[in-house]
């Protein structure tokens, strides 16, 4: 064979030497002060708006609106302050929070324990799961009268309501999570010859933690509401009792004050759960939160 003449041509085009970089003067980062002023303005706008609505409410109540239907904001705040200084608020809040804490802890621990057990014993798990799903379908609120017959008007009924609410949320979330551990983790466990106990403790439980955290975040405010609802239907203490008593007495200022307390309670619990999660679970990818 004779020499092959290549027909490929490569031409090179080098860009001209770029002169030494000078810092661009025109584009300066926005000074933080201006950004802070923007934020202050927005906050001021919201404060002004809410203030105006409250002022309009204040002025119209008793003039155009029957104060028996809608109390004045000033009256609501006065009532709230009254509860604070007399210790009423602490007395009732203590009851609600105690029921909430005991119910939540018991429910979360029992639900998680059962979920681990059922995930480790798949046959038992499959058998029992159907009952848990059916029971979850029963509206617990409709059962409060039954619980009152069983447990009376004391704190036990409220704890049990809280318990049931957390139980189903946490059980379903953690059972699902434990049964569906990312197969890559299980493969790693197999390659590294981890035993059954290690596979549970060092792989599957950890992998379930983000799902557990979401369940807790969902369950905490829901449990608070369940406890307050149980207090509606038979109690002589608690925030729910404050609400229902005010309603019976047509004391709108107290009623609104109690609503304010419940709202604040649920909000604080939601925020606290979210803050705790982002503090403790820094390793969880953002999209899973």
């Amino acid at each position, binding site marked *: 064979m004779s020499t092959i003449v290549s027909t490929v041509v490569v031409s090179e085009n080098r860009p001209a030497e770029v002169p030494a970089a000078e810092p661009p003067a025109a584009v300066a980062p926005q000074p933080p002060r201006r950004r802070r002023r923007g934020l202050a303005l927005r906050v001021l706008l919201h404060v002004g708006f809410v203030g105006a609505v409250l002022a309009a409410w204040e002025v119209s109540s008793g003039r155009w609106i029957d104060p028996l239907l809608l109390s004045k904001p000033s009256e609501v705040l006065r009532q709230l302050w009254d509860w604070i200084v007399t210790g009423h608020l602490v007395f009732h809040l203590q009851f609600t929070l105690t029921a909430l804490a005991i119910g939540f802890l018991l429910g979360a621990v029992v639900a998680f324990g059962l979920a681990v057990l059922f995930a480790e014993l798949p046959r038992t798990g499959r058998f029992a799961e159907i009952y848990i799903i059916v029971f979850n379908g029963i509206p617990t609120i409709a059962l409060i009268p039954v619980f009152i017959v069983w447990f009376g008007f004391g704190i036990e009924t409220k704890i049990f309501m809280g318990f049931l609410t957390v139980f189903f949320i946490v059980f379903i979330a953690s059972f699902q999570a434990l049964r569906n551990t990312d197969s*890559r983790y299980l493969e790693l466990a197999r*390659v590294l*010859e981890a035993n059954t106990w290690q596979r549970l403790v*060092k*792989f599957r439980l950890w992998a379930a933690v983000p799902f557990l955290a979401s369940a807790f975040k969902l369950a905490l405010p829901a449990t608070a509401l369940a406890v307050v609802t149980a207090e509606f239907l038979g109690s002589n203490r608690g925030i729910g009792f404050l609400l229902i008593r005010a309603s019976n007495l047509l004391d709108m200022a107290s009623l609104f004050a109690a609503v304010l307390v419940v709202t604040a309670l649920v909000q604080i619990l939601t925020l606290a759960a979210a803050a705790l999660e982002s503090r403790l679970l820094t390793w*969880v*990818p953002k999209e899973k939160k």
Partner: protein
Amino acid sequence: MTTLATGSPPRVDGADTPDPAISVRDVGHAFAADTAVVEALRGISLEIPAGQFVSLVGKSGCGKSTLLNILAGLLTPTGGEITVHGSGLPGLPNRGYITQDTRLLPWRTALQNVALPLELHGVGKKERLDRARRLLERVGLGDAAHQRPDQLSGGMRQRVAIAQALVYEPAVLLMDEPFGALDVWTRESLHDLLLDVQAELGTTAILVTHDVGEAVSLSDRIVTLAPRPGRILGDYTISGSGRPRRHDALRDDVLADLQDRIRRDLGADV
């Protein structure tokens, strides 16, 4: 001078033949798909001497990953027999396994991930952290010991995975496209690292790849597989040139020829 041997490596039943680290005897594997039985592997026999770097090359569907998973003990073959000889640190698995998507545990730091195999087999805390730290330094990640996987780049995560697979000094290192998701420069630096550590520990390495260049660059021996059912097509042993063979070395006539032959074996643009 690079030389090339085709076919099974000459079997000399003499005293100086190294014991095989891996023997695969007539392995076949079939699994049930929706309606039919798919035969993934048929009649695979291989003897791999200790310390050899072998690449399994083939198109997708040729069963190379299935074969690797069988070697890793993740799959039990439906026919034939495999034996993996040799051992790592006492009481630890004798196989290491790395894949394209690293299986690092996101809740553990790089150091804790590397120490995990030792932790699972009862190595004391101080010793396992010392070993893990040494290996992390070996793969150039001494500074990243306390970072978690999500804080590391893809190449760094792959380094951690390599360190984890080597921390217990397994006799055999199994790799399934470990460099597939990385850019060229990261890949080349990991090639260097892998060959250094492999030589240092005398590890037998099996690499599954579809990249012919990568296989020729790294291997002592290349086994090509044909698809459906997966079976061995060619078996090439390269000797007489240092590894990794960089792109200029791959232009060597013998190696260029080998790459062409492998591509022809596989029958298409691999």
